[in-house]
């Protein structure tokens, strides 16, 4: 009836000003698309923060991208050098998708 295949669900939490750089890397490894989700607030070892649009530098965004295993690996490779300096939080999970040829 319909066919599902396994793909990677990549979730990257990043400071909003740096998001365009991550998106450039997503394009570089030829992942077909991405979506940005707004993060309201959070906390970690560097303290707590709330999103405020006044000084956008403290805002954070989640970048969501669905990709094949190979492309996900390529992306991780691209991101490796900046993982620390950008303080990225990067997680990769397995999901089933339909119309998998698109990813």
């Amino acid at each position, binding site marked *: 009836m319909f066919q599902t295949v396994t793909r990677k669900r990549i979730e990257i939490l990043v400071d909003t*000003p740096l998001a365009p750089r991550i998106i450039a890397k997503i394009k570089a490894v030829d992942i077909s698309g991405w979506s940005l989700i707004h993060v309201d607030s959070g906390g970690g070892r*560097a*303290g707590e923060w709330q999103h405020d649009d*006044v*000084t956008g530098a*403290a805002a954070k965004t989640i970048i969501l991208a669905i990709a094949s295993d190979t492309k996900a690996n390529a992306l991780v490779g691209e991101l490796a050098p*900046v993982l620390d300096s950008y303080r990225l939080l990067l997680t990769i999970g397995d999901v089933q998708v339909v119309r998998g040829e698109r990813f």
Partner: protein
Amino acid sequence: MIIDTLTSPVILFFVLGFVAALLKSDLTIPEAFAKAMSIYLMAAIGLKGGVEVASSGITPDLIAAAMAGLALSFLLPFIAFALLTQFGKLSKIDAGAVAAHYGSVSVVTFVTAKEILTGQGLGPAGYMVAVLALMETPAIITGLMLARRGAKADNGNGGTPWHEVLTNASVMLLVGAFIIGMVAGKDGFAPVKPLFDTGFRGVLCLFLLDMGLIAARRLIQSRKITVRLVTLAIALPLINGAIGTALGTFIGLDAASAAALGILAASASYIAVPAAMRLALPEADPGIYLSMSLGITFPFNIIFGISLFAALAQAIG
């Protein structure tokens, strides 16, 4: 004068926000509304400055003030950098990032000062808005240069993000509205005056309420601030503000405009520069520069700095 300042609703709303955040109240201003107010304030201040310059023309004072502003923005980061590395014990990267903030300016501090001073019959010249816009970016260049002199390989992120710096939202909006004000002139401004002029002070109240909340929350939540950095976050506006006021007086500005130049020098950016630093120096810790500029220097200037440099300008003027 400080009493006048402290009974102005504009300042009292800032205090209310600050106190509410210290009491850990759940009071918050929706961020979209806060950003809308900051867009409104920048458009209004740009427009009004442009309209004033349209009628006064480009005077020698304007040119002198512009040159002074540019010089301050380029040079003040050197003082800040020296103090931040020596006394503040910051790494070169962090010190360069912080120094850029103190060379640049805070639009809201300027706007608040303009309102308070105008309310006391000491309104700065319209062209000071142009000076404000000119002072936003040069400090970024100096700060980056200072940070990088001692930096290790910068992971290939580096390079000054020229495009982002020159087209950043607040520069575009201030300069754009300034030009619109110049083109439209007094007559063209009349139909939009009810929104951009009459309502201005009230909006500033609500915006400073939010700034009080944001400044205090940043102060509470920060884990990166040492006593030395707190000291510098108060010393730097004092030093920079005194230099700015003196320079303004020296080049012959009226007392009000000299005070405004002092306040611009004393103020620290928390919009344009943090965004640029996050891009150009991702290794620098945003916890440090935001806590200093937004958590300490901004409230200090709003509550004490404005009155202080106004008094200084009148004393030496």
